[in-house]
C-alpha cells in the first residue's frame, strides 16, 4: 500500500445557512450531524428502556403520561404486552443501528478520520452528505411507526419470519409497523454502504505524505476495518430486507414455508420458504455488526490509554493485526446465534470453535491495554476514566461469551437474561463508554471548548457503577432460567426473581438519570465551556496539529510516541520533523517518492 499525497481539491466555501449546516458536504459538519442524530436516538431508546424496566418490575403500575402518548398501546397508562414488544423492538433497533453503528463510526469517524490521516476532506463529500440524509430518512421512517396503525413492529430487532413476514395476521405491529421497520433498515443499509465506500477510499487514497498504514492511529485502523465490515455485511442485510418485503408484499416465499395456519386461518400461496434462511442472512450481518459497534470503541480505547498513560501503545502491530483478525473472523461465526435454531448440529461445532478463536484477538487487545497501562503515568481525565471503564466492562461482558460459545451451555442459557447481560455489557455499555470517552476527548476539537471535568467525573463514576448494577444481576437471572423478551413474568418459577428485577429497574432509573448530567455538561459546555487550546491533551496525532501548520502535512513517525527518551517533551507529534535522519525520516521520504 503506497501512501499518497492528499489531493487538495479546491472547494468554494459553502454559502448560506442551509448549505453550510444542513445540506453540508463538510466532513466535520456531517460528523456532528451523525453525532447528534445518535444522541437523540440514544435518549429516545433510553426512555423506552425506562418504560420497559418499570413495567417489568411493577406490571400493574399505570405509568403517568403513557396513556396520552399511546391510547391503544397503553390504555390508562397500563402497557399492553404488544406495546411492550414494540418498545423492545424500537429500543434494540435504535440502539444497534442509530446509536452504536452511527456515533462511533459515522460520527467520530467523519469528524476525525480525515484529520488523523492528514486529508482535508472525505474522498466523496457529496456521497457523504447523501449517506447522512439517507440515515436521517431511515430514522424518520422508523420513528413514524409509533403513529402507524397497530403501532411499531413487535418482532424484535432480529425480525424473524414468519412472525415478521405475514402481515398483521400474526399480531398488531406486524402490519404497517413491520413494513416501516423493513423500509427504515433498508435505507439505513444503503446509507451505511455509501459511507463505508467513502471511509475505505479515504483511508487508502488520501493519507498525507509519510502516513504509512502502520503509522496510522489505531482509531483510524478501527474505522477502516469497520468500514470494510459494513460494506460486506450491510449488503447482505439489504438483500435480506428486500426479500422479506417481497414475501410480505409480492407473495414470494423466501422465508415462508407451505401449510401455515395462523389464528385458525390457512395461509395460501406460500411454499418452499425457510425461516432459517432469514436467520442465516440476518446473523451473517448481525455478528459483524457487533464488531462494527465495538471496533471503533476498541481503537479509541487503545488511543486514549496510550495518550493518558503517557506511554506508547503496548504492541501496536499486534493491535493492528488483532483488529484485522477480529474483522475477518467476525464473518465466520454467525452460526453461534443459531445453536438451538434447528440448523445442522454438526455445523454448530465448527461455529463453536471459530467463536472461541475470535476470543483470542480480543484477549490480545485486553493484554495489551493492561500492558499499556502498566507503569504508566496516568492522567485521569474524564476521557481516560471512560477508557479505563471500557476495559473493565469489556472484560466482564466478553468473558461470558465463552459460555455462550459452547453449544451445550448455550442450550441452557440461550434466549435468557444471561445473553441480555452479555451483549449489553460487551457491546452496548462498552460501546457507550467508547462514545463517552470520544466525546470528552474530542469535544475541544469539535467545538473549540472544554467540557466540565468535575461534572464529567461524577457522570463517569455514576455510569460505571450504574452499568454494573443494571447488567451484572442479569447473568443470575439468566442462570435461573429467566427468559428474555417477556412482557411480564407470570410463570411461578420466575416469582422468586422479582426482587432482583426491581433492583435492576431502580438501578436503570439511576443510570438513566446520571446521563442527564452528561447532556447538561454537553450543551452547557457547547456555549459556556472554557476555550480550548490547540492541543489540550498533549496528544501526538494529526487532528491536534495547529491550523497554522498549513494543510500540506508530512508524517515522520508512528502515532504513539510518548515518553521518548531524550526528548524535551514527553510526546512527539507525528508531523514533527526528525533531524537525526532516522527510520521515520526515511519512511517520509519513501512516501514522498511515491
Amino acid at each position, binding site marked *: 500500500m503506497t501512501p499518497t499525497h492528499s489531493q487538495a481539491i479546491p472547494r468554494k466555501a459553502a454559502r448560506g445557512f442551509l448549505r453550510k449546516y444542513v445540506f453540508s458536504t463538510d466532513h466535520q459538519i456531517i460528523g456532528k450531524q451523525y453525532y447528534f442524530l445518535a444522541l437523540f436516538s440514544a435518549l429516545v431508546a433510553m426512555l423506552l428502556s425506562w418504560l420497559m424496566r418499570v413495567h417489568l418490575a411493577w406490571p400493574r403500575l399505570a405509568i403517568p403520561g403513557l396513556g396520552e402518548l399511546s391510547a391503544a398501546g397503553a390504555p390508562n397508562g397500563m402497557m399492553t404486552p404488544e406495546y411492550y414488544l414494540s418498545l423492545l423492538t424500537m429500543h434494540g433497533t435504535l440502539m444497534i443501528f442509530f446509536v452504536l453503528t452511527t456515533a462511533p463510526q459515522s460520527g467520530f469517524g467523519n469528524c476525525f478520520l480525515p484529520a488523523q490521516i492528514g486529508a482535508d476532506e472525505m474522498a466523496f463529500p457529496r456521497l457523504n452528505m447523501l449517506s447522512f440524509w439517507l440515515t436521517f430518512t431511515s430514522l424518520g421512517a422508523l420513528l413514524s411507526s409509533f403513529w402507524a396503525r397497530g403501532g411499531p413492529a413487535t418482532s424484535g430487532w432480529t425480525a424473524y419470519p414468519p412472525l415478521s413476514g405475514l402481515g398483521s395476521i400474526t399480531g398488531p405491529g406486524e402490519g404497517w409497523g413491520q413494513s416501516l421497520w423493513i423500509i427504515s433498515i433498508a435505507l439505513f443499509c444503503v446509507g451505511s454502504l455509501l459511507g463505508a465506500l467513502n471511509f475505505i477510499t479515504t483511508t487508502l487514497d488520501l493519507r498525507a505524505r509519510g502516513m504509512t498504514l502502520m503509522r496510522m492511529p489505531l482509531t483510524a485502523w478501527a474505522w477502516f476495518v469497520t468500514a470494510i465490515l459494513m460494506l460486506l455485511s450491510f449488503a447482505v442485510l439489504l438483500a435480506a430486507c428486500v426479500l422479506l418485503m417481497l414475501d410480505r408484499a409480492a407473495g414470494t416465499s423466501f422465508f415462508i414455508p407451505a*401449510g401455515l395456519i395462523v389464528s385458525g386461518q390457512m395461509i395460501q400461496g406460500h411454499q418452499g420458504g425457510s425461516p432459517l434462511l432469514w436467520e442465516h442472512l440476518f446473523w451473517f450481518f448481525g455478528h459483524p455488526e457487533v464488531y462494527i459497534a465495538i471496533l471503533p470503541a476498541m481503537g479509541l480505547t487503545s488511543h486514549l490509554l496510550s495518550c493518558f498513560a503517557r506511554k506508547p501503545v503496548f504492541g501496536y502491530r499486534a493491535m493492528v493485526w488483532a483488529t484485522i483478525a477480529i474483522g475477518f473472523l467476525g464473518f465466520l461465526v454467525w452460526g453461534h446465534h443459531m445453536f*438451538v435454531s434447528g440448523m445442522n448440529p454438526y455445523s454448530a461445532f465448527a461455529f*463453536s470453535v471459530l467463536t472461541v478463536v475470535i476470543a483470542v484477538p480480543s484477549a490480545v487487545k485486553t*493484554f495489551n491495554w493492561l500492558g499499556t497501562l502498566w507503569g504508566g503515568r*496516568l492522567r485521569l481525565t474524564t476521557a481516560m476514566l471512560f477508557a479505563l471503564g471500557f476495559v473493565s466492562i469489556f472484560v466482564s461482558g466478553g468473558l461470558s461469551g465463552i*459460555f455462550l460459545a459452547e453449544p451445550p451451555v448455550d*442450550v441452557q442459557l440461550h434466549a435468557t437474561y444471561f445473553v441480555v447481560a452479555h451483549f449489553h455489557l460487551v457491546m452496548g455499555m462498552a460501546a457507550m463508554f467508547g462514545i463517552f470517552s470520544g466525546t470528552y476527548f474530542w469535544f475541544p476539537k469539535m467545538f473549540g471548548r472544554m467540557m466540565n471535568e468535575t461534572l464529567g467525573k461524577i457522570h463517569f463514576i455514576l455510569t460505571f457503577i450504574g452499568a454494573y448494577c443494571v447488567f451484572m444481576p442479569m447473568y*443470575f437471572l439468566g442462570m435461573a432460567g429467566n427468559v428474555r423478551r417477556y412482557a411480564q413474568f407470570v410463570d411461578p418459577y420466575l416469582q422468586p426473581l422479582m426482587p432482583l428485577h426491581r433492583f435492576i429497574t431502580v438501578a436503570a432509573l439511576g443510570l438513566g438519570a446520571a446521563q442527564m448530567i452528561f447532556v447538561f455538561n454537553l450543551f452547557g459546555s457547547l456555549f459556556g465551556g472554557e476555550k480550548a487550546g490547540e492541543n489540550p491533551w498533549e496528544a501526538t496525532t494529526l487532528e491536534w496539529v495547529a491550523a497554522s501548520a498549513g494543510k500540506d502535512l508530512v508524517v515522520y513517525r508512528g502515532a504513539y510516541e510518548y515518553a521518548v527518551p531524550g526528548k524535551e517533551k514527553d510526546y512527539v507529534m507525528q508531523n514533527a520533523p526528525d533531524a537525526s535522519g532516522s527510520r521515520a525520516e526515511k519512511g517520509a521520504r519513501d512516501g514522498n517518492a511515491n
Partner: protein
Amino acid sequence: MARVLSFTIVLGTAVTVILFWRRVWWFPPNISTQGAGVDREFGLTLLVTGILFVAAQLILAYCIGRGRKSGRAAYNTGNLRMEVARAVLAAATFIGLALSSYRTWARMYFIGAPRNALRIQVEAEQFAYWFRYPGPDGVFGPMHLRLVNDATGNYFGLDPTRDPASRDDIVTATLGIPENRPIELLLMSRDVIHSFYVPQLRIQQDIVPGMVIPIHFTATRTGDYEIVCTQLCGLGHYAMRAPLKVMKEPNFKKWLAKQAAEQ
C-alpha cells in the same frame, strides 16, 4: 479519583465472586441424564473465566491505583515474545473449553433417540402447545391441514373416521412422561417460530414451521415443571407455556389411560 475507581473495581469484583461462590441465584436443579454434562461444562467454564475475570480486573485496579506519580513512563512499545506466548495460551485455553463441551453436545444431537424411546409429537401455535401420543398401535395418524380446528379440539387435524391409525391417538395439553425412560419429542409449529425450553431438563430447542425437529432426553426425577417459549412469537409470548409432568412408570400409564378415556 484513582483510589475511588480502583476501590470500586476491587469491590465490584469481590461482590461478583461472592455471589457466584455462594450460589445466591443459580440454576434450577437438573432432572435429566444429559444435564449433568451441561452443568459440569458450565462449572469448568466458570472456573476458567472466573480466574481471567479476577486477574484482569485486579491488574486494572492496580494499574490505576499505583500509577507512576513522578517522572516519565517507560518507553515500552511491546514485547513480541510475551504477546505471542499469551495469545497461544489464550487460544489453547479457549479451544480446549470448546472441545470439552463436544461430548455433551454429541450426546444431545449427534446420537438419535434409543429404540425404546417414547415418541411424542409437540405442536406449537400462538400461544399454546399440544402433545400427541401415538396410542397402543405406536403409529401417529396422518395430519390434514384443512381439519385443524382449535374450536373443536382437533389441534392436529386428525380424521379418525377415515384413518384407523388416528383412532387411538391421544392429544393432551399437558406433557406427561415417565421417569427414567428415553423420550423423543418431534417438534412442529403451525404458524411462527416458537421454542421448547425446560430449564430443569437443560433442554432448549426452537420449533420452526416447515420442519420437524426431533430432540431426546431422559427425565430422572418426578415432579411438576413448566415448558416455556423462548422465541419471540407475538403478543402472548410471555404467557406461552404448558405443564410438564414427570411420573413413575405405573402412574404415567394410569395418567395416559385417563387422558385416552377423555378424548
